[in-house]
Every structure is written in C-alpha cells, then in structure tokens.
C-alpha cells in the first residue's frame, strides 16, 4: 500500500491504535440489534403487501387475534394521521405524512412489501400463523416501476394529490413528478456556442440496496406509566426517538432509545420501519416486543437508493477547457417523494471550475419501496454520467484524462454551480497523486483497460453532544451520541488523548442513549468524526480548564497563573510561585475535595464541514467469450483533511470503492412485469465477494480543513462516487465498447461487444 500520510506532527492523531470496541467484536460479545433479550418478550412480525399497487378495501384481524398466543395486532388505525409538511433532516427532508403511510399503509399499498399490519405473539411460529390469518381485501390497481414510464401521460398515478412543485405555473393535474429542481450558473447556451466539441449522452442506472449485513431489528418495551425503552440498530437514535414520538403521539422525554452496535447502515438506517410498530405493539400488550426483518423484507421494504436517467451535455474547447455543461437528472423516489435528486444535481459538476452550467432534476414516484439515503445519496448517479462524458471528451480530444481534469478542476475559490465558493480543497492534489502513482504508470495486459474518474461530496456538521468524565483514578469515560459504524470511538478517543496528552487506552468510550446525553443528529453526511471530534476536543479542553482551576485553588494562585503543558498542570511562570506540577490523575484524586466531579461537556452545532474530493483508478479485464468484467487493480485516492486513524480512513476508501464496483458491475433491483421484485436475496442480488476483487490500494491526501481543530474532513461518502465512471472508462478501453447503462453485467457486456464486433 502506498503511504502518502505525512509524518504525524501529533503524538496520537495519525497513529493506528487498536480500536476500543475491537475485542468485543472479534469475540462475539458485541451486541447488535437482534442480540438483546428481555424477560417475557413477544415476537413481532409484519404483514406485507403482495401487490405493487392496490387499494385496501378492508382488513379483518379477528381470526388472527383469536389464535392462542397472539397478543396484539396493529394497523394504520393505530397511528394518527399526520399533516404533509417537509422537515429538514440533515442531507434530506422528511414528511411525517409519508413516513406514517410508509411504516403502515393507509388506504393504498404502493409497493410489494408495503406494511399492512403487524402482530405480536408468544413466538415466531404463532406470529407467522397470525399473519396468515389476517384477511386483507385488495382492489388491485395498475402499477408503474420505471421512472421514465412513470412520468408519461396516462401512467398510473400513485398519489392523487401530488402536484409537481418547482414548476411555474403550477400544474393543475396530479402526476408522479413530485418536484422539479434547477441550478444555473452563467449561460449554458452561450458556453455551448463557444465549444469546439460537444458530447451529449444519456445514462441509466438501476436501484441498488445499501446491503448492510445486519437486517433492521429492535426491541421495544412500553410501560404502563407512559415511558418506553427502545433498543435498536440505527444510525441515529435521537432521530428514531423523534420519529417514533411523532408517529405515536408520545412525549419525546418519555422514550429512551439505546443504539445497539450497528451492523452496517450506509444511510439505510437513518429512517424508521419496525420501531414505531414495535412500540405500538408493546403498548398494547405491555410486554417487550422484538422485531427483526428477514433479508427478503430488507430488500423489499427498506430503502434502496434510486435508479435513474441522467442526460449529460458538455462542450469543450480544443485545448480541453470546458465551456458549458448541462444535465437533466430523473431519479426514482420509490413510493413516496424524496429521491436524492437535489444532491445529485448539486454534485453533478462539482468536480469542475465552470462558468456556464445548467442542471435540472426531477423527483419521480413509482411503485417501489421508498428510497433511503445511500452513501453520498444521488452523487454516484449524476457523477457516473458526467465523469463518463468527461472521459469520452478526453478520448475524442486525444488528451490524457488526468490532464483534461487538471485543466478544469475545482480549487480554492471555485464557485460551485449550486452556490458556494470552495475553501481549500484537494482535487488537484488527488489528480497529481494519481498521475504520479505506480498504478497509473503500470503496463496493462491483453483485454485489459484503465479508467479514472473523480468524485465529490459536501459533508455536513450539525447538532452534536459529547461528555467526557475524568474518573477518580485519572482514567476517562467518553460519551458520544453518534452511532459508531466503523471506528468512530477509536478516532474520538485519539483526539481526546491528543488534547489531554495521555495514553489513548486510558479513555473508554461509549455511545450513550438518548436519556444520558444531549441531542445528537445521526451518523450520516460523513459527519461523525468531524462533528463528534469537534465536540470531543471542546470537552477535553474544558477538562483542562477545570483541572487548571482546581490546581489554582490548591496552590492558592489565580487561575490565569496555571498552565497545561506536556500533560502536566504547572504554574505558568516564576511569578506564580513554586508548586509541584500535577497530572490530570493527581487532580482527579482530589476532585471531590476541590469542587466535585470534573466533567467536560460540549453541546454544539458543528459548523465548517468541508467537502472531500477523490480520484479513483480502475483496471479491468473483459472476457470476450463471456462478457465478464474483472477488476484487476484499483486505487482510491482521496483528501481526508487529516486522517485521525489512517487504517479506518483507508477502510472507508476501500469499502466505498467496492460498493461502487458492485453498483457498476452486478447489483440491480430486477422487477417482473407484475411489479414484484425478483431478486430479493443475496444469491440473486449479487454484492461483491472476496474472490471478485483485487486489493484496493489507497492514497490518503491531507489538505487540512481549516475549520476543524485537527483539519478533519468527512470522508465516508466520497469513495462511492467515482467508481462507476472509473470502471466504465476502464471497460471502454478493455472491450472497445462504451457503456451507458449500469450494471455492466456479463450478458449486457457480451451483447454489446458482439454488436460492435468485439466479441
């Protein structure tokens, strides 16, 4: 692995200690969503729609309730109706009317797998028998799956009151287009007029699932006094608490949510499915209710990300300067509005410093499960189209794809088409590193090709609370509230250890529950190391300040005369008097006598999140006999700002790249003419396995984010943005054919190669 990480100027930050939650995870001790048991717990199961689109004429639960061992049934009647209003939620918005209709169908089922009722019973067998005993009378309606079919006149309408927003004048008739968005910079028509070469292409991508290995799971226990506890695998337990309180009409303060260890999320565990049902069932039965989705339910009823259609047009001068760029992006929202079309549009041309840009996007509903966030939601879809066109321009101009990008790359001061001016960003550094890499210079074998693409993600900050307790023996307990999916606790302890100049193993972290810590927005938007890191640093500095205050008291000198240096609390200078320096441990031992416990607490809304750019290089080999594409070498290069724990930064680059490889080559939701998902399992929905892949090389670039105490940028999402275009460019050179549709699975590749006379 090539190491570009600079020699650490810190003692702890930039090193690679073993993560504090590691031993529990290699010994099987760590408790995930399905791993908790409570005395007297019931099993909850969901009855799901067998139809893609149908009106619910009646639901008869009497036979189910009459079965011995069945304790309760809930349907939409158990959840109050919600008004339609859009509430900002991190990288997207939520609408409680849609949310409550998604967790339990009201009046209509809108996709196969849509929840219709839920039961609680003594055991799984009885619960499943109860589902069979529920009689639902449906009036089956015509359905529509593809987003381009859904926008045609005469397509079946999902929501009779959906009037497209963002269009003037407002349409008078309902359609499946929820909204139109537009971003304009300069004058695209003028820019195309100046171009020597214009390339215009249309791309199709399929819906893909986040594919976390741990299915959704929770355990709810509602007491007679109106309080409730919920154990759940989630990316954000404060968010789950808020959603459940709203959907059930309960008080927020009475619900205590504990996040279990989380077995992967990638954006998919930012919403609720089972949680409000389990709480409602527990309230009805006054017993704990455990609910776990099957893998089939995960595929059919939890959010994939959008498939979509992306039209890209770019104009360029002979010297490679891009004069104009246009895109039209149509994304599937699933059954309820809220596709990531807005970030897809904003990301589309973010890699470039352009004068004339126009991007239009459409959010389209169809009879599919409602999409959920998936790692850089929307970014990979639009970037696939744009970066593929950039590659084609490089080919047509006979230019190196890196030189073409360097000529147009976004840099500090670039005004992005979606509005802001970039601060210091690392795209040029990533491109230069690509050019200098061993990989870029390595020879290729027969039937092999090399492709490259760039990617961008915004990253966010937001509400974050951390508590750091100095224990009596000088050890520390760190409480954070952003669920740790891939090494967060390690990074937070490292930042605290760096601040306090202490051994990182002396700090024990936990992810606190919602009743133990102030509000935390969820782990998403690549914000957890950035935001909880910022709060940790503030909390650690507060500990230092308090410790200095205690020493001042002991030494009877003013607080300003005490300083913290090299891990010791010392008199600031000769005038402060001669006092023996004290360690934090020394102060901790006398904390009780000098004012009580020392606790650093930071409740912030983290500002100053900075984008992260990345560049990926992919080598593929295409088998002209079968059309199978094999990735033979791969390098992910990305700006981390500062890598707190480089191993986990590399891990994000590698994992994101491989999810992108799956998206490019194999993964897709396949629907039958009946509107039913045909591949709701890991055998037929093919995520990459170890034998599909080479090692994934990484190069960490560090252009510090000036707004973070250690220079951190969010890094989790960017790695999934470049792979599809990088692989597409690579397959183009390996096979001689340029593809405009994902996945580039063997039958499609073989067919295209045959048509082009290349196979």
């Amino acid at each position, binding site marked *: 692995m090539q190491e570009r990480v600079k020699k650490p100027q810190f003692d702890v930050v930039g090193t690679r200690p073993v993560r504090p939650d590691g031993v529990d995870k290699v010994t*099987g001790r760590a408790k995930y969503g*399905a791993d908790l048991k409570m005395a007297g717990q019931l099993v909850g199961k969901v009855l799901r729609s067998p139809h893609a689109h149908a009106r619910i004429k009646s639901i008869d639960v009497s036979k189910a309730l009459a079965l011995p061992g069945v304790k309760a049934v809930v349907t939409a009647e158990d959840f109050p109706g919600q008004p339609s209003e859009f509430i900002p939620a991190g990288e997207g918005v939520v609408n409680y009317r849609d949310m409550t209709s998604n967790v339990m169908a009201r009046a209509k089922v809108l996709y196969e797998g849509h929840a219709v009722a839920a039961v609680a019973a003594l055991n799984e067998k009885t619960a499943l028998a109860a589902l069979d005993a529920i009689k639902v009378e449906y009036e089956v309606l015509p359905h529509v799956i593809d987003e381009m079919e859904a926008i045609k006149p005469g397509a079946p309408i999902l929501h009779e009151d959906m009037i497209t927003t963002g269009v003037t004048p407002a349409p008078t008739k309902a359609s499946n287009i929820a909204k139109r968005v537009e971003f304009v910079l300069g004058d695209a028509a003028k820019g195309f007029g100046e171009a020597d070469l214009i390339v215009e292409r249309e791309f199709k991508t399929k819906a893909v699932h986040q594919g976390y*290995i741990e299915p959704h799971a929770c355990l709810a226990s509602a007491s007679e006094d109106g309080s409730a506890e919920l154990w759940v695998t989630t990316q954000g337990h404060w968010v789950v608490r808020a959603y459940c309180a709203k959907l059930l009409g309960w008080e927020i303060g009475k619900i205590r949510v504990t996040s279990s*260890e989380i077995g992967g999320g990638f954006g998919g565990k930012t919403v609720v499915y089972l949680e409000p049902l389990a709480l409602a069932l527990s309230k009805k039965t006054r017993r704990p209710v455990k609910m776990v989705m099957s893998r089939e339910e995960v595929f059919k009823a939890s959010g994939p990300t959008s498939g979509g259609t992306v039209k890209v047009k770019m104009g360029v001068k002979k010297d490679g300067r891009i004069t104009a760029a246009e895109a039209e992006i149509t994304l599937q929202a699933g059954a309820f509005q809220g596709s990531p079309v807005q970030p897809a549009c904003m990301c589309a041309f973010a890699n470039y410093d352009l004068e004339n840009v126009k991007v239009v996007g459409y959010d389209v509903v169809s009879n599919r499960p409602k999409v959920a966030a998936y790692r850089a939601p929307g970014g990979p879809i639009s970037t696939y189209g744009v970066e593929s066109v950039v590659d084609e321009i490089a080919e047509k101009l006979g230019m190196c794809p890196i030189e073409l990008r360097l000529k147009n790359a976004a840099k500090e001061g670039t005004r992005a088409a979606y509005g802001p001016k970039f601060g210091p960003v690392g795209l040029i550094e990533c491109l230069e590193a690509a050019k200098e890499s061993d990989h870029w210079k390595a020879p290729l074998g027969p039937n092999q090709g090399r492709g490259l693409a760039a990617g961008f993600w915004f990253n966010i900050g937001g509400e974050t609370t951390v508590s750091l307790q100095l224990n009596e023996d000088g050890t520390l307990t760190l409480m954070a509230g952003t669920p740790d999916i891939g090494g967060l606790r390690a990074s937070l302890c490292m930042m605290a250890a760096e601040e306090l100049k202490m051994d990182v193993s002396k700090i024990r972290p936990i992810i606190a529950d919602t009743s133990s810590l102030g509000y935390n927005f969820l782990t998403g938007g690549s914000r957890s190391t950035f935001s909880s890191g910022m709060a940790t640093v503030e909390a650690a500095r507060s500990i230092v300040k308090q410790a200095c205050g205690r020493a001042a008291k002991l030494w009877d000198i003013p607080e300003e005369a005490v300083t913290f240096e090299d891990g010791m609390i010392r008199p600031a200078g000769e005038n402060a008097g001669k006092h023996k320096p004290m360690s934090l441990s020394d102060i901790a031992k006398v904390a009780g006598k000098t004012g009580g416990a020392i606790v650093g607490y930071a409740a912030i809304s983290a500002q100053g999140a900075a984008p992260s750019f990345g560049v990926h290089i992919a080598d593929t080999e295409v088998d002209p006999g079968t059309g199978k594409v094999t990735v033979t070498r791969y390098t992910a290069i990305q700006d981390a700002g500062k890598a707190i724990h480089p191993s986990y930064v590399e891990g994000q680059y590698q994992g994101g790249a491989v999810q992108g490889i799956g998206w490019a080559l194999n993964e897709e939701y396949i629907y039958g003419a009946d509107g039913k998902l045909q591949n709701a399992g890991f055998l037929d929905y093919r995520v990459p396995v170890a*034998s599909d892949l080479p090692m994934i090389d990484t190069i960490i670039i560090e252009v510090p984010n000036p707004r973070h105490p250690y220079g951190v940028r969010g890094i989790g999402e960017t790695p999934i943005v470049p792979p599809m275009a990088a692989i597409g460019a690579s397959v183009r050179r390996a096979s001689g054919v340029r593809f405009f549709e994902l996945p580039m699975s063997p039958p499609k590749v073989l067919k295209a190669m045959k048509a082009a006379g290349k196979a």
Partner: protein
Amino acid sequence: MAKHHVTTTVNGDPVEYLCESEQTLLDCLRDELDLIGAKEGCSSGDCGACSVLIDGRLVCSCLVLGVEAEGKEVETIEGMAQGDELHPLQRKFLEHAALQCGICTPGVLIAAKALLAKNPDPTETQVRYWLAGNLCRCTGYDKIVRAVMDAAAEMRGA
C-alpha cells in the same frame, strides 16, 4: 408437539437444549443457548454471518437444523479465544483494522480458522475464494485478506 431434546458439545462444553423440528442450529445457539456471536444476515446460506464449525467442518448454522447437532462438536466464535489469549486471527483482525461494523466478523473469523486448519499457507487467491461465502459490506475485503495472510504467517512461525 413435543420438542426434541438435543445433547451436544459447544466450544468444549457439554450442553443440552430443547428445540422444534424446524428450528435451525443458529436459532438454537442464539435463542436456547444465548450464544449471540453467530449472526443472522440472510437465513439462506448466502452471507456466512452465522458460520460455525461442526466436527471441524465449516457450515452456515442457518442451514443446519438444531437436531442435527446431536452428538456433534460445535465451535462458535465464543470458543475462539483461550482465556485472555486471543486467537492469532482475532489479534490480526484488530491490528489490521479488518473490521468496521463487525457484524460479519465472527463468521469471517470462523471461516478463516477453518481455512488455516486445512491450509496453513494459503495464497491470496485461496483466501479470497475460501472467504467468498462470507459477505462483508464495509471493508472491501482488503484488510480482511491481509489479516488472514498475516495470521497464517504468524501461526506457521514464518
């Protein structure tokens, strides 16, 4: 319907449990014996998160019935460390940061242990094909493969 009485050995301990005919070994381990280290990711034998060894043979415990464990020796992730001493695979997984969320880790470790018992000196390709039945969605497998190779080298005394 009467439950079946199963007598078996799990991680060297003699154990007994009662189970239904259709109950999987995975459910018996998790629900009857409270051994929650093996995870259910798919219940169809596609993800490998429930991997355990039966008489030394690597299986998906979601595809084995609880009654089939009768008289067998079952080994789960809970039996991998010896007292305070982590197995070299467990240690190398930590050193190489070969896990992110960790849900696949118990299954991967059990599968890797079975590989090294058969082949103490596997090539990268052999490791990749052996672990092809264990899905990991976080790591892209790079650090997993490195950790297994490194543990193998250490166990060989190389």
